[in-house]
């Protein structure tokens, strides 16, 4: 039957070449026997439509051939847990070492400017992709060796055979403030987002439009100038972001990313008050200055004074809100600790 020949020809193309002849010969015998029997039952040859329906039921040529292929994967289930573990460790350590080395380079260099720091931060994802590619390549090699030369490759599952129950870490409470565990992907995404934010912050002094957008044109054209207190607060914000990011990376490194620490949460919030307090205590409550006070003070002096007063009030309100949130969080954690102590006793 021509249709069967065409089908077998198509299957052959997807078979391992060493076994093509043998497989096709066997498949042909089996299918021809089936065809003979079907035609005996019908008492006549199959019509083209019937033949088509029968061939359709066999599955596509590629599907049929795929069943003759050994199962293939880049990294199989035996090796995968070790791969994931090494990938996490390697990417975290690579990030830490990369940032450390570049930080030393930047601080010992002649000039430290935002653009250089931002470039270091924006290059980090590429470094991580490269590390992940190398780790994957090595593990794919291990998988290949284990699959093709099992006698030359030690039992890979045996990596885990030497563990002892005594080495298990002590029990840790799994409750989190919102009752949910953080996934590794979530923790990684938070860290990545932290890097982006830090990079963005560092670019702002040279490229103020990143923060103010088209308002920069207005600021440049206006007679006003931001007071130096903003830069002091800005560097505090940058420093706090860097600390927060380092902490997150350490969490990833230590494997404690599943459970955000309540104390850590409170400390971050408390330290986050510092820039606000710096602004609230600005010298003479000055946030805006005049570029040319000798010329413009008569026209804009009153406006600047009003704006400074307004900004100060706004900052005070923000301080009160953040302090209230902090007090609420502290109170909640005290209650939580007391509740746990009562439960355990």
């Amino acid at each position, binding site marked *: 039957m021509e249709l069967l020949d065409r089908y077998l020809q198509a299957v052959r193309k997807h078979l391992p070449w060493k076994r093509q002849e043998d497989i096709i010969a066997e498949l042909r*015998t089996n299918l021809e026997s*089936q065809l003979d029997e079907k035609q005996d039952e019908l008492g006549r040859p199959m019509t083209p439509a019937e033949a088509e329906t029968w061939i359709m039921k066999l599955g596509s040529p590629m599907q049929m051939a795929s069943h003759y292929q050994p199962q293939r994967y880049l990294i199989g289930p035996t090796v995968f847990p070790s791969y994931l573990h090494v990938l996490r460790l390697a990417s975290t350590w690579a990030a830490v070492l990369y940032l450390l080395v570049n930080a030393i380079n930047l601080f010992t260099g002649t000039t430290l400017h935002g653009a250089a720091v931002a470039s270091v931060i924006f290059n980090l994802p590429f470094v991580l992709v490269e590390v992940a590619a190398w780790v994957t390549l090595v593990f794919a090699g291990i998988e290949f060796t284990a699959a093709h030369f099992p006698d030359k490759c030690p039992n890979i599952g045996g990596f885990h055979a030497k563990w002892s129950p005594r080495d298990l870490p002590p029990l840790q409470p799994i409750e989190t403030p919102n009752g949910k565990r953080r996934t590794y992907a979530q923790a990684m995404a938070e860290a990545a987002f932290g890097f982006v934010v830090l990079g963005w912050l560092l670019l702002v002094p040279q490229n103020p439009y990143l923060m103010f957008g088209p308002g920069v044109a207005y600021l440049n054209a206006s007679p006003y100038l931001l007071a130096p207190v903003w830069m002091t607060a800005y560097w505090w914000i940058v420093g706090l972001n860097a600390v927060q990011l380092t902490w997150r990376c350490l969490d990833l490194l230590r494997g404690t990313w599943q459970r955000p620490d309540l104390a850590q949460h409170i400390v971050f919030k408390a330290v986050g008050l510092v820039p606000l307090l710096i602004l609230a205590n600005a010298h003479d409550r000055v946030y805006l200055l005049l570029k040319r006070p000798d010329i413009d003070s008569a026209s804009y002096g009153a406006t600047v004074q009003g704006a400074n007063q307004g900004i100060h009030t706004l900052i005070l309100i923000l301080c009160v809100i953040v302090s209230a949130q902090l007090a609420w969080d502290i109170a909640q954690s005290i209650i939580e600790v007391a509740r746990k102590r009562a439960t355990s006793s």
Partner: protein
Amino acid sequence: MTLPDSTFENLRLELRRGCLTLAVLVQLRREHYGYTLRKDLAEHGLVIDESTLYPLLRRLENQGLLVSEWREEDKRNKRFYRLSSDGEQLIGLLLEEWRAINGSISSIL
């Protein structure tokens, strides 16, 4: 919550996979070629696709559980399979395991 059809299908396939291998091995205590084996199994209620059965025979032969030979029958060259001596030994153990599982499931039910 409604489970997708694929969930049942995947679990069904998983459940059938081991059973089919066992059925094939048992059936090959007597010599068969691919098509008659498929017919035999279908008559016992185990319908297996061609694309599943024929490659399975190859895999079992590669594992040393089956032996095969090409022979002419009814003017057609056919590849006949039967259980190897290793397969004979293994099938005893597998059947023992099967009976234990079957007994456990029956008692749970």
